[in-house]
């Protein structure tokens, strides 16, 4: 990753947190003092390096891990805002990235019953829950949306 792309990546994450949502390529062009095509080309290189995930058809950010650019089953309240995590791992990751306590709301994929977890001092308040990862680590990026 070259320094220009690293700067764009860091600006993109900072803007995501400021806005509480994924910035658009046009917004990032302004923030990074580039034109939109340059910002989008930079995002595409970051996508290729797994530094974020784009919807290649629209150019919108799908994932700036651990944050999701789209609605998911993992809602996280942290730092005075609601966010979406890409998965259970990322839901905790939002608290970690923000260095905040938080609250995660989701549901059991088997029975549909709601699951609510408070994260305080990096610890969940319900130790009975289990995390299941279906895809082996070597294949996580084969299809990151499925993973």
């Amino acid at each position, binding site marked *: 990753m070259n320094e220009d792309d690293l700067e764009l990546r860091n600006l993109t994450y900072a803007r995501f947190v400021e806005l509480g949502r994924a910035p658009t390529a046009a917004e990032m062009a302004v923030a990074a003092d580039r034109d939109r095509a340059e910002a989008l080309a930079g995002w595409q290189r970051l996508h290729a390096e797994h530094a974020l995930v784009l919807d290649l058809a629209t150019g919108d950010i799908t994932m700036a891990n651990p944050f999701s650019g789209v609605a998911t089953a993992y809602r996280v309240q942290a730092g005075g805002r609601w966010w979406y995590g890409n998965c259970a791992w990322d839901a905790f990751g939002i608290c970690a990235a923000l260095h905040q306590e938080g609250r995660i709301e989701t549901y*059991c994929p088997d029975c549909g019953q709601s699951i609510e977890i408070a994260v305080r001092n990096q610890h969940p308040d319900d130790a009975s829950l*289990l995390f*299941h990862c279906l895809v082996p680590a070597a294949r996580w990026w084969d299809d990151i949306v499925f993973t």
Partner: protein
Amino acid sequence: MNLFRSGEHIQRWLAGREPGATIPVEKLSELAHAWWEDRLSPRWRPHTADSNQAILDRLGLTGDFWRLPSS
């Protein structure tokens, strides 16, 4: 990568598919904090595969399932 109410719920959800790996939610939180805590730092640099593997190893997430591809 989902949270479940119990191992029985995982088995039912798998519906005969080969299981992956299951860890307690407390371990997941520990993993997430180690993995993501620097993500918003202005000094962030891409993690190497070795550094990510070291996080997994340190948390006892070892074996073929948790083996990352080398970069």
